[in-house]
């Protein structure tokens, strides 16, 4: 019944499509169907990428590419002009290197925390607990929130006169300036982004846990295996493919961290939560000394890092496919 319009549509579309196939052949039809998608991909991804690369070879403050001066690799040279890469103050673009190292720290800590918390959550959700789908929804819910909303919620909670400090004060302790003190702000950036995305990764891991045959655990029980050994020798190795996927996905997302932290801390205090995407955004669009060429060069470099990570992920996915095909 519901499908009736579909059948009608198919009948109407059939003759012209057949005519087209006679003209273009089978491969022509394939191109015809893929073309709209390729068009969108080209306009919004491929062409901007090329333009971005062109921008990174130009200098000055002008916005239109035609008005800009070709400078070759000068912008890249400027980014890498550094006395000691570990010491941002010795670099010409000290903010860039501050953002790079902040991002590296953030990625290492956030990915470790994310994978750990997601794994623990998945293990708990995999138990025979009451109202399992309710808890699953609770942990997944933040994933559905817009990053800006996430940032706002946690700003209300963490700001000087926010919810958390109110509760701390009521309990008789001294309030802490969560978003103003360097280390607390950094910790807040990590925790909030973990809170916001953890549910998604926990779900991937939960699916992996549920795919492990129950009778392996029964065999282990017959074998008298202690729970810790069951975890290390059975659960973890069999979950490894899912863990690797989660690891790489969180890695890619963490490198790109921006929106929720930007709303939460604005990169502060000072530059202590300034990450690479925010640096690019500010140099490109927001700062007084706007330099689109420099921002483009930085984004091309970041893109290169992401390409490497993505290739790594694709490699894993393909290996997984081969294994399951066996």
């Amino acid at each position, binding site marked *: 019944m519901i499908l009736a319009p579909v059948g009608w549509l198919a009948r109407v579309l059939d003759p012209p499509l057949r005519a087209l196939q006679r003209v273009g052949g089978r491969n022509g039809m394939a191109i015809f169907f893929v073309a709209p998608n390729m068009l969108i991909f080209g306009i919004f991804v491929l062409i901007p990428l090329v333009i971005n690369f062109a921008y990174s070879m130009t200098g000055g403050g002008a916005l239109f590419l035609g008005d800009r001066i070709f400078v070759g690799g000068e912008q890249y040279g400027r980014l890498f002009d550094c006395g000691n890469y570990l010491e941002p103050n010795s670099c010409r673009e000290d903010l860039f290197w501050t953002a790079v190292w902040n991002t590296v720290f953030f990625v290492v800590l956030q990915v470790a925390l994310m994978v750990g918390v997601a794994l623990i959550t998945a293990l708990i959700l995999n138990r025979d607990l009451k109202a399992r789908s309710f808890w699953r929804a609770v942990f997944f819910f933040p994933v559905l929130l817009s990053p800006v909303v996430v940032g706002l919620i946690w700003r209300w909670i963490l700001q000087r006169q926010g919810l958390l400090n109110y509760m701390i004060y009521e309990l008789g302790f001294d309030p802490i300036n969560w978003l103003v003190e360097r280390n607390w702000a950094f910790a807040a950036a990590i925790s909030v982004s973990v809170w916001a995305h953890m549910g998604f990764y926990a779900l991937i891991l939960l699916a992996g846990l549920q795919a492990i045959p129950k*009778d392996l655990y*029964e065999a282990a*029980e*017959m074998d*008298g*295996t202690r729970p810790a050994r069951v975890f290390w020798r*059975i659960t973890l*190795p*069999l979950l490894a493919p899912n863990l690797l996927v989660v690891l790489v996905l969180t890695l890619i997302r963490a490198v790109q961290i921006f929106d929720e932290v930007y709303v939460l801390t604005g990169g502060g205090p000072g530059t202590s939560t300034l990450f690479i995407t925010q640096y690019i955004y500010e140099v490109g669009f927001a700062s007084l000394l706007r330099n689109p060429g420099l921002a483009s060069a930085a984004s091309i470099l970041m893109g290169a890092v992401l390409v490497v990570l993505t290739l790594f992920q694709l490699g894993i996915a393909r290996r997984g496919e081969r294994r399951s095909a066996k």
Partner: protein
Amino acid sequence: MSRITLTDVSRSFGSVKVLHDINLDIRDGELIVFVGPSGCGKSTLLRLIAGLDRPTSGKIAINGEDVTRVAAADRGLAMVFQSYALYPHMSVRQNLAFGLENARMPKPEIEQRIAEAARMLNIEPYLDRRPGQLSGGQRQRVAIGRAIVRNPTAFLLDEPLSNLDAELRISTRAELAALHERLSATMIYVTHDQIEAMTLADRIVVLRDGRIEQVGTPLDLYNKPANLFVAGFIGAPRMNFLPSDKLPGTAGSTVGIRPQHLRAADGKAKLKAKVTLVEALGYETVVHGLLDDLPLLAVLPGQKSFEAGDTIALTYDAENLHAFDEQGQRVD
């Protein structure tokens, strides 16, 4: 040494009672087969004995010692799962060693036990492969090997042959019988296949809907089925059942006769049946017939020249009749 005693064992899942007051005494060293149609509770019963599940009520004892609340690993039993349940990411050797390592057995002894089991089961060439690289039959052996190395007091096997093809099933069945001889350990073997039960068992336990219908040696069950269910379940093709007034000189309300116990009559016929289908197998002839509209099956030795539509005369020996009362219980 392992004598397993079940006393009034019941198991319910929610409001559904799956096992009803099972009483059973499994003797030391015997190969006992639980047989019954799918869903009758065989696996559930085996899992209760294994300790993977707990009875809702009742008692399980091994060698007189109550183990109802004892953990699976501490019962000294080993299980062979229907799916084999081999650890897929470990080599065959690691699969065999895993349980022994749990028990903190010294390495040389582990090595020795693995070598012994591997020799017994002919899996030496595969010790360093993973289960995924083995055929179904080889995996099956590894699963049995994993049970053997633990040197258990009893083996529990849940439909161990059901994932093998027909030919392999028959040869593996024979090997299992030989293995039982050799290890002289108690074995509890679950199957839905009555032929498997008949060929392997010292004693058979027939289960239906969570109740024991009969316990006995294969020939006990064949010669003296306690009720209509066992009579119909054991023996292939299925026993013929007829109202007793169709067969002169019989007692009870229903009378059963096995298809193989009907003979073509030369002289005085006791039955006349109309042939509906003839299956000539060469060494025997399976005749489907109707006796006053009631189906009747006869398996006659050798080759016969019957055709559909013929009326044939059949006879039997009175001692091969089985009589059952209105409740379906055997009357002698």
